[in-house]
């Protein structure tokens, strides 16, 4: 399937989904759906660096939060000059901010391999969080209120607008991930994951590709985070830098499969939907327990994720 065709189909699916949701006409679907979609973008973002290039980012929450706080920052500026940027613009800005952070992180840490890289991203997360906590313009530790309008022309409820934006982000990020995966860039990424020395010897500019990956991945995280203040209405560092983002960003691709764009999406849809469902059915610690058990179960029983499981089921038994 050519990329434009794919984009078209994806858009059609998204549009159908949106219309179906509207038909049901219940805001909760949009709220829950927003969270699920947000995780699809986050898992896809993580996978571009983690799954395609093999560099594990522990600090996903930091990138997400930079998107969140870029919106808070421009919102607060907007309060002062009495002009608010529209959310799509804020998403683009959030993406740029997190992309820049990705670039910085790349330069600082990409010469580190394996766990050292992972630990460095974790350290970066703490440093950014401390910075935000101490930056009173964006609310510091006390948090910031971003009061969303409750209605919006044409669409009606504001959450539908946010949902639609996130849906567009999902379409874009999946299309981006798929395009990368099938492009020469994707092949380059895969060589980095497999063997950096051999990649260099085959002409792959590994450092540049890794920087591209950190920037693209960072930008997607940031874009996922940018509308969040409007979703939650009140942001404080604990909710923006929540460990759940870092954990889910890794867990979802792991459960779905890290080799293709489908894996993170499937993992995010599954895990995040499950988390939503559990939150509203068994109101207790069961949520964590199930995330934990699923994670353990999947990595033990389906090492290549759901996608890998599916592939080996459809491909039939291979010769020993």
């Amino acid at each position, binding site marked *: 399937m050519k990329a434009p065709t794919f984009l078209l189909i994806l858009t059609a699916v998204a549009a159908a989904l949106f219309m179906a949701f509207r038909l049901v006409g219940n805001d909760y679907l949009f709220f829950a759906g927003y969270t699920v979609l947000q995780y699809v973008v986050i898992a896809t973002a993580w996978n571009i660096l*983690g799954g395609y290039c093999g560099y*594990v980012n522990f600090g996903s929450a930091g990138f997400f939060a930079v998107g969140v706080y870029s919106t808070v920052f421009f919102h607060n500026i907007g309060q002062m000059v009495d002009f608010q940027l529209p959310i799509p613009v804020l998403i683009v800005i959030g993406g740029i901010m997190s992309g820049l952070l990705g670039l910085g992180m790349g330069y*600082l*840490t990409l*010469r*580190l391999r*394996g*766990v*050292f890289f992972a*630990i*460095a991203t*974790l*350290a*970066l*997360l*703490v*440093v950014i*969080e*401390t*910075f935000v*906590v*101490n930056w009173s313009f964006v609310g510091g530790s006390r948090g910031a209120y971003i009061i969303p309008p409750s209605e919006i022309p044409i669409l009606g409820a504001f959450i539908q607008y946010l949902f639609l934006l996130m849906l567009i982000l999902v379409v874009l990020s999946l299309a981006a991930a798929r395009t990368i995966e099938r492009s020469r860039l994707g092949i380059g990424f895969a060589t980095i994951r497999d063997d950096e020395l051999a990649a260099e010897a085959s002409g792959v500019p590994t450092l540049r590709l890794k920087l591209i990956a950190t920037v693209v991945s960072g930008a997607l995280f940031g874009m996922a985070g940018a509308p969040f203040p409007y979703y939650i209405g009140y942001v404080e560092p604990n909710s923006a830098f929540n*460990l759940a983002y870092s*954990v889910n960003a*890794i*867990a979802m691709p*792991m459960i779905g499969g*890290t080799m293709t764009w489908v894996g993170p999406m499937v993992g995010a849809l599954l895990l995040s939907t499950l988390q939503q469902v559990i939150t509203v059915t068994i109101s207790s*610690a*069961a949520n*964590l*327990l199930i*995330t*934990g*058990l*699923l*994670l*353990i*179960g*999947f*990595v*033990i029983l389906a*090492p290549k994720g759901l996608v890998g499981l599916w592939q080996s089921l459809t491909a039939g038994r291979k010769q020993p």
Partner: protein
Amino acid sequence: MQFDLLINAIIAGLMLGGFYAAVTAGISISFGMLDIVNIAHPGFIVLGSYIAYIVNAQFGIDPIVIAILALPVFFALGTGIYGIYFHSFEKHGQDALRGLAFFFGLLFVTEVLLILVFGVDYRTVSTAYVGGSLKIGVMEFPLRMLVPALVSFAMFAALQLYMSRTFIGRAVMAVSQDPQALELMAVDPTRIKRIAFSISMATCAMAGAFLIVIQPVLPSSGREYIGRVFAICVLGGLGSLPGTLIAALLIGVIESIATTFYGPSWAPAVSFGLLLLTLAVRPSGLLGR
């Protein structure tokens, strides 16, 4: 006056560092020596805290004594977990990422079990030395920090002796470098890893007791330590217990001085910034080989 402050800031930092060292000791073994990214380690430390809590509440035994009694329990727990880890991952070749996810899952499961058994309230222990403090000249040693720090130093000394003086200990230090070559020394690398991992889990009993002596504990308390624990381990240099101890003391002292003189708000950035810097300049850590 300023001089008093500095001296006491350093002392407080060293004691805090002693505690950090205890929290990191197990990671230094499992992650540093065995290449097992046991991100659930802090979760098991909290489990150690709860065991100290429950026994302390029932029988009034000192939490650190309880920890020592609980060592075999944690050792056995480690043996069990390593068994699962080995059969699911290590046997089929290393896959650090999947192992990581496994331990993430384990962290959650431990946390939930604690919630289910003990509820969500803060838990504390009562011991004679909480609140008291030893004074030598201008120097002050709050016993609540001093006792854990001293026991932690003793634990480090014991671990280091074990690692450097015994056959198993030496094998532990070598096992991740070339497990197959160990077989040529008539040593079963899997057994060595199992023992080492069990030891690393046993340290959770101690660190858990220290934690609950120093502050009240919640089932989710462990999460916040993940970053710090790995940071100290990497800063010190993988696989080096003395390195871990030094890094822990360094972080403790830096945080304490930053807190005393510059306001505590920036302390986390200082220590993690230091880690970033160290990684950029010397990726193998302070005492990395």
